[in-house]
């Protein structure tokens, strides 16, 4: 019986070994060797000694932070409102629907909307304004990235809000809490696991966004993701590309650890 069960696990194990563990080993291996294939730490020393790399890293962090922040700002109230609506399934469907459309397609659609002759500029023209340069700006990049990521923030928050027993809200109000106090002391802490997974689901991929930086950001926004693409496809320096990859993995791990840290309570002596 035991043997049979491990047999069922085989396809997945193969998958993990071939497509998760092996690439990781390869990336780490490449990052620790020079172009001749000898062991060397020169890629890392280069990364941390050159201002451009550090700048790129901070840039990536900053943009990912902004995208996550705006996502949270829009998604939390939206999720809270969703839990109080009738026909919740229908509204959830509307939230999820955009994720069924290909990412590139959405990016191109925004090019149509934001370009010089796009909808936004046509609209501004009606009032005698514009044309404004929207494409290839930080604003456009963050706007589109936020738009794309929002469903991945709404869903986990909605689910965690849905799990809160309505009696807890009544209990809070029964004990004298107004709406804001109930939100601060009951709703927010209880929905934190959803916020946490939302942040992880958005911040981590946002660190290495590269398609949007090119299409919407017009390569003015350079993140670590763009750099990886450059090194692998343009300059063919796989060693440096892998180094950046490893650094990204480390950054993501740090974010994971930080967001899922459990708070320890003080003991109270009575």
């Amino acid at each position, binding site marked *: 019986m035991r043997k049979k069960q491990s047999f069922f696990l085989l396809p997945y194990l193969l998958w993990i070994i071939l497509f998760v563990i092996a690439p990781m080993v390869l990336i780490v291996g490449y990052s620790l060797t020079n172009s001749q294939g000898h062991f060397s730490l020169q890629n890392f020393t280069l990364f941390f000694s050159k201002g451009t790399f550090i700048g790129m890293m901070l840039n990536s962090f900053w943009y990912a932070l902004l995208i996550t922040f705006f996502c949270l700002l829009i998604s939390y109230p939206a999720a809270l409102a969703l839990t109080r609506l009738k026909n919740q399934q229908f509204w959830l469907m509307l939230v999820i629907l955009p994720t069924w459309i290909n990412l590139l397609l959405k990016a191109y659609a925004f090019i149509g909307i934001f370009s010089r002759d796009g909808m936004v500029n046509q609209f501004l023209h009606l009032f005698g304004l514009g044309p404004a340069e929207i494409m290839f700006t930080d604003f456009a990049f963050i706007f589109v990235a936020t738009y794309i990521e929002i469903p991945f923030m709404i869903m986990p928050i909605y689910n965690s809000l849905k799990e809160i027993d309505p009696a807890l809200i*009544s*209990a809070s109000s*029964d*004990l*004298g*809490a107004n709406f804001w106090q109930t939100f601060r002391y*009951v709703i927010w802490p209880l929905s934190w696991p959803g916020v946490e997974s939302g942040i992880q689901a958005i911040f981590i991929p946002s660190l290495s966004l590269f398609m949007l930086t090119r299409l919407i950001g017009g390569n003015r926004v350079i993140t670590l993701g763009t750099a990886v693409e450059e090194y692998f496809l343009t300059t063919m320096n796989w060693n440096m590309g892998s180094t950046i990859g490893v650094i990204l993995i480390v950054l993501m791990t740090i974010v994971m650890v930080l967001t899922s840290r459990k708070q320890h*309570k003080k*003991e109270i002596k*009575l």
Partner: protein
Amino acid sequence: MEIIKLDHITKEYDDGFVALKDINISIESGKFYSLLGPSGSGKTTILRIIAGFTEPSAGKLYFAGKDITGLDASKRHINTVFQNYALFPHLNVYENVAFGLKLKHRPDSEIRQKVKDALKTVRLDGYANREISELSGGQQQRVAIARAIINEPKVLLLDESLSALDKRLRKEMQFELRAIQKKLGITFIFVTHDQEEALAMSDEIFVLNDGTIQQSGSPVDIYDEPVNDFVARFIGDSNILSGKMIRDFEVEFAGKQFECADAGITPGEKVEVVLRPEDLDITATDPKLTMTVQSQLFLGDHFEIKAVDESGFEWLIHSTNGVKIGQEIGIFFDPEDIHVMRLGETEEEFDARLETYEGEDKE
């Protein structure tokens, strides 16, 4: 002193369902009240209206003489112990109990002292740093009570608060709740569907069915003199027979005429007669009725016997001694054990009628 008054309270939901029909209740301070009824009778709706979680469709709610019908739940001097306790799972015992005082920004030292006292009242000293998930059902129940009494409410509402506990713990908590109520001296309003619980703890019981109050009174009154067959059936076991009033203090049922303690009913009127199974004594000499034993259950402290009389009515008898199945037994009961109910008589009419002939006795 009257602390809470429900004045012609009606609750109709959007879908047309009428949960409460013209409820008038007066609650005095310092007493233990029970709202007793089957599920769907409206008892929880009354509680929610008093707590402020539901607004009545019509009628007024008064608290110490002031109209609080539209007042937010957070501003009422009333606290609730919820059905499944509704303890905050992300907070530990101390933080749960301190919740109400923290909201009021009381100084830390005061909060500590009051939490300590509240935990002592519910006999949970030393549990302050426990997580809620580490507690048993009975302990969670106590935390919920401690959390509710720390705000020093004038009235404490308890919503089916013991129903999640096992039978032994429930009995224990009944005693304890009663003790806590006596100690704090505040009004408890306890919602339950368990008649034993209501009888054991209350000073006064409101029996509800279908959104109306069927009867209110002390446990003894309600048990001994149910106003209609709903109350008679819902509270305790009973034998309910149809009968006919012959004249004052004489009633006919099971094909025979008996002396009884009821009067003020038109001679010849069709009535219902209630006899409690524990008031029926099995006797060999001078029986009032004879019947044949059909079945018998041993329930530990007594036997539950079912027997059929000559008219075919199946009687329920509680007896400390067992009988044999198929045996002919004789039954004896006192005139006071017979309770006569008029069909369709309301509580007010019943009380008024009682007044007419019980008044005579006293003269």
